[in-house]
């Protein structure tokens, strides 16, 4: 695998139950790209993200994520990726700082790295000590992204990241993702909000019936 291609899938097949959710997907994602995955419900977008996170077994075909073979070494992928699904993966009874520190410390992040992650997501001193249960949806999303930063995620896999956010929250999220990409993160976004996600993405791919079609660069 070329070092500048964090994700390479060749004829990847994923079967859930008896149903092939991914039926020979081919995809290469280059470092620093923001790739939009679009397609109808049930097309396989979420499965594609979970495959790249090392959470799902590859039935046939080949796949490498961050240099790790998905057939033989998918567990090594996990601590290098950040998967953010419909949920935020936060503990509502803990504060912003406690959540970000907890997830950061699972990979041995230092206090300085945790503080930097909070700063990068504009979670200032006033917000950092507020419990998650008292935050708006946008603030929770920012906290979840700060946790990805603290976890030193190199590949961000985001499933409908704009869901539940108001217009200001969506703008804020897009800016955060652009900054993360500029800082070196590679981002894959599954979204139904094509107009918004389309302006954010550097490339779009279409997922239809478990197949991936490259729709080309957008910027």
């Amino acid at each position, binding site marked *: 695998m070329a070092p500048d291609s964090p994700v390479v899938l060749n004829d990847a097949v994923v079967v859930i139950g008896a149903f092939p959710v991914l039926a020979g997907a081919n995809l290469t994602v280059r470092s620093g790209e923001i790739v939009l995955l679009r397609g109808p419900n049930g097309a396989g977008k979420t499965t594609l993200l979970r495959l790249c996170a090392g959470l799902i077994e590859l039935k046939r075909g080949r796949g490498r994520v961050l240099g790790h073979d998905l057939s033989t070494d998918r567990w090594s992928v996990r601590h290098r*990726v950040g998967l953010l699904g419909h949920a935020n993966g936060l503990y*509502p009874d803990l504060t912003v700082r406690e959540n970000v520190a907890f997830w950061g410390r699972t990979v041995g992040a230092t206090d300085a790295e945790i503080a930097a992650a909070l700063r990068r997501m504009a979670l200032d001193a006033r917000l950092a000590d507020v419990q998650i249960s008292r935050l708006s949806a946008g603030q929770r999303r920012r906290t979840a992204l700060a946790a990805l930063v603290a976890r030193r995620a190199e590949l961000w896999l985001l499933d409908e990241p704009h869901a539940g956010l108001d217009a200001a929250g969506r703008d804020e999220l897009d800016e955060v993702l652009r900054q993360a990409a500029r800082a070196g993160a590679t981002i894959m976004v599954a979204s139904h909000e094509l107009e918004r996600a389309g302006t954010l993405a550097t490339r779009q791919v279409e997922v239809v019936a478990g197949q991936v079609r490259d729709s080309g660069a957008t910027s």
Partner: protein
Amino acid sequence: MSERRHAFASVRATARLIAVKDLRIERRGRVLTNQVLPFALIVMVMFAFALDSDAVLERVAPGLVWLATLFSTLFVIARSFAVEGSDGALDQLRTSGAPSAGIFLGKALALMVQLLVLVVVLVVAAVVLYRADLSWQGGVLLVTTAVAATGGLAAVGTLYGGLSAGAKGRETLLPLLVLPVVAPVLIGATRATESAFGTNGIAVGEGWPWLGLLAVFAVLFGVTGAIAFGSLLDE
């Protein structure tokens, strides 16, 4: 050798991280103090109403303490995994790369601490409600019994809590999985507590052999859980 030491340190650090997190969540949420403890005390009072005889209550007090503990344990286990599932934290744990043995041991340790608090309150309730006697030698046996028994319950609870975490109907599945498996804890802890209370004239010394059963149970499920928990989380 150094790699093995590093892996051990990583498991220990993860266990500490998870245990501190779970206990902090419990301290903030107060589910143990505001819901589980009152439930356990109500069970003890209901037993007293149902049996309605001081002599009988004094005789069966050890068994009632551990039955109330078992029933309440189910709530504590369910809560421990509900906090992971409520906002998708379980998926984050899977992708965190944290060693699964550390996650298991951390969650089991936090459960054990909560169960120890529960047992202390229930023993005090038994002394007050059922007039159970407790000498200082009996107290030493009871504390040791509580540590070993709650260790075993916590290990089983974490193992089966992880197994049922993503399952349909997990609320009803959990008791079906846990209660039959912890029967040896119920028997061993009840016999040891009978000795500690001096129920039916049983000497304190007769209770110590039951600790062997409790210790073996705790170690067996602790080791099994630490090994198997990663596969369970993946399912």
